[in-house]
């Protein structure tokens, strides 16, 4: 048997390229990971695929853009990360609030009635698909709603009349600055903030689930809802908190996304949602650390795939990787359920 070995140079041209593809992938992977948390938490607790989580994220991206319009105005400008930081922090809070609100609304309207009725799992998926359509469309029709309530003149900058379905950009473009270089590849402050923030949020959440009373409640319900209820855990409250956390994390992801990309639209959540869900499954759905691992891995593999086969095959690389991982490890890389997380 002959083994053909490829060096980094053969596939990527040079080590600089390789490092660059990897960093680019990590930045995106961090955003996937934060969105994936929403899928993984809900799945861990309810064994339901929260299909509408992508819209929770999308509302967060608009919240960021609107905060900038509100505090900065519509004249487009370029700022460095430092200059934009004050508004960015406000935007982060607003986005977390908005995303959490949408997530809780979703739980109340599309899930709780079904959970109470002990309905089949699949129907919750349909309910979520419906809610996902409705939420995305409602955002695409924001110009009409503004007109209905007679505020279209006041809200002009927020709804962009006649073009509510068109791409909506943050008025402030945040330009990255080079910080330092590794092996000829320069790392920018924006990239570092995105990856750093994502890992920080992950660690915080992980600790929350492991160490706090609520975290114990979540794990208890994830493991055995009936026993948890008998032990005095309010399962409705736990489900709410689960959605809340997913929403907050999606809000963080939305802020980082707007920091890096800078524009959004009413269907921006769909593709990212599919990717994030893939990431969650890859890492082992229901597993928080798995979501981080899956997200980063997916981001990096996509970029490597683009480099080797061309960008049009990126998604094929991602899905083939998923299938391969599931064939070898049928419940994802870390495969451990939320309920079984070590305390």
């Amino acid at each position, binding site marked *: 048997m002959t083994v053909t070995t490829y060096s980094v140079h053969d596939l990527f041209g040079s080590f600089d390229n390789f490092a660059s593809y990897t960093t680019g992938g990590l930045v995106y992977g961090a955003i996937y990971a934060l969105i994936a948390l929403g899928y993984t938490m809900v799945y861990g607790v309810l064994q339901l695929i929260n299909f509408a989580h992508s819209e929770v994220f999308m509302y967060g991206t608009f919240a960021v853009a609107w905060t900038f319009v509100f505090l900065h105005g519509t004249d487009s400008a370029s700022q460095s990360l430092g200059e934009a930081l004050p508004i960015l922090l406000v935007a982060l809070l607003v986005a977390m609030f908005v995303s959490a609100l949408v997530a809780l609304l979703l739980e109340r309207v*599309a899930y709780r009635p079904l959970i109470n009725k002990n309905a089949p799992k699949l129907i*919750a998926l349909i*309910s979520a698909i*419906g809610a996902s359509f409705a939420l995305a469309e409602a955002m695409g029709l924001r110009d009409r709603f503004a007109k209905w309530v007679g505020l279209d003149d006041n809200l002009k900058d927020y709804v962009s009349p006649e073009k509510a379905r068109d791409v909506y950009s943050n008025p402030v473009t945040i330009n990255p600055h080079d910080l330092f270089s590794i092996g000829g590849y320069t790392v920018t402050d924006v990239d570092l903030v995105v990856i750093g923030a994502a890992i920080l949020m992950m660690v915080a959440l992980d600790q929350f689930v492991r160490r706090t009373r609520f975290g114990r409640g979540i794990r208890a319900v994830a493991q055995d809802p009936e026993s948890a209820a008998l032990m005095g855990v309010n399962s409705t409250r736990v489900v709410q908190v689960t959605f809340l956390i997913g929403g907050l994390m999606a809000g963080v992801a939305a802020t980082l996304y707007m920091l890096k990309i800078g524009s959004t639209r009413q269907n921006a959540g769909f593709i990212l949602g*599919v990717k994030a869900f893939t990431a969650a499954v890859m890492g082992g759905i229901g597993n928080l650390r798995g979501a981080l691992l899956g997200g980063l891995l997916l981001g990096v593999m996509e970029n490597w795939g683009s480099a080797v086969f061309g960008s049009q095959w990126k998604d094929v690389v991602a*899905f083939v990787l998923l299938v391969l991982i599931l064939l070898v490890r*049928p419940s994802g890389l870390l495969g451990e359920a939320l309920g079984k997380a070590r305390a």
Partner: protein
Amino acid sequence: MATQTQPPVGTWRNPLAVIGDKWDGVVNAYNRQPLLVRALLIALVLVLVYALPLLRPPVLTTQNIDFGGVMFRVAAFALVALGLNIVIGYAGLLDLGYVGFYATGAYTTGVLTAQHGSWPFFLALPIAIVVTMITGVILGAPTLRVRGDYLAIVTLGFGEIIRICVKNIEWLGASAGIKDIPHPNTIGPAANPPFDKGGLFEIPRVQWDGLTPSLDYDHATHFLVFGALDAIPYYWLLLTALILVLIGDRLIKASRVGRAWEATREDEDAAELMGVPTFKYKLMAFALGAAIGGLSGAFYASGQGGYISPDSFPLLLSMLFVAAVIVGGSGNRWGAIAGGALVAYLPERFREFADYRLLVFGLALTVLAVWKPDGLLPPRRVRRAKAAEAEIDALELGEDDGGVKA
């Protein structure tokens, strides 16, 4: 969860059961009739269904889009839902990439009849079915070993892989798609556009002025002319296929295979212990479902427009297909057909809502799901189980409340 059982549960189940019970009533009443009456009833219903786009009933008919075209789409969706019902409803496998099979059927037809060959449609059709079935087996063999919920994302991935491949492979027309796919052969004198419309004879359609019907000879359907001007012959063709598949579905559901699917769905481990080779049967469901999806895709490809492109097979369509099956009542073939028909029909009927169409559709899906968690027409076994459950609840509560049982 048990502690949350509230008194209204017994009464709550009632609206859910109404449609299903009525449907049962209809079926029972029908079954009591003598053979001759039953045959006549079936014939009457069939004639009505076939004639629907010609009758153009006032409220039902779409105003801003050709009703024949809508009925074609409705039948196509019903056929797809019927196929997916085998996968989801019978075998209990959540397939989020079903559009991939729809695309495979369409592309096989396109390649054989237009892109790389000039086969007649009816020769390409069986090949399309076989190719799609093989695709189903190839995709199913590795993935069906994956556990239930994981299967959803894997199938979704395969749906996307098929679409991306089609989009990037020049041999399949890439993003330009396949143009000018020939129509099925016209039966009778062929049309000779633009003036000679051909056909064996003409059937006028009915025109309604309020509730007064009249015949409209100007826009007659030319019998069995498969051209670009009239969708009704395609509807007839597809409806015929739908009926054949329906009969096949009935036969297979009542057979050993159907029972094996049911056992696998309810408890895979138990089924395996009882000697049911579950993997084999799951694969079979997957392949059969795929074949029906391919069949529908083949009809779509050689339909009125005769044009397919990768953009016709978005991921979203898979979601719609799943929604159709589940909204209709997963596991019940009539439910699946009704769901498919509704999902295709409602957005076209309410075109005047224009911008709000998808919003209303999304809301409707959620409301339907929350209101009728078992679908519009749940299978009889589900309704029986629910009824029994409600009865037990009512009996338990009866001691306190004095008989809530409805």
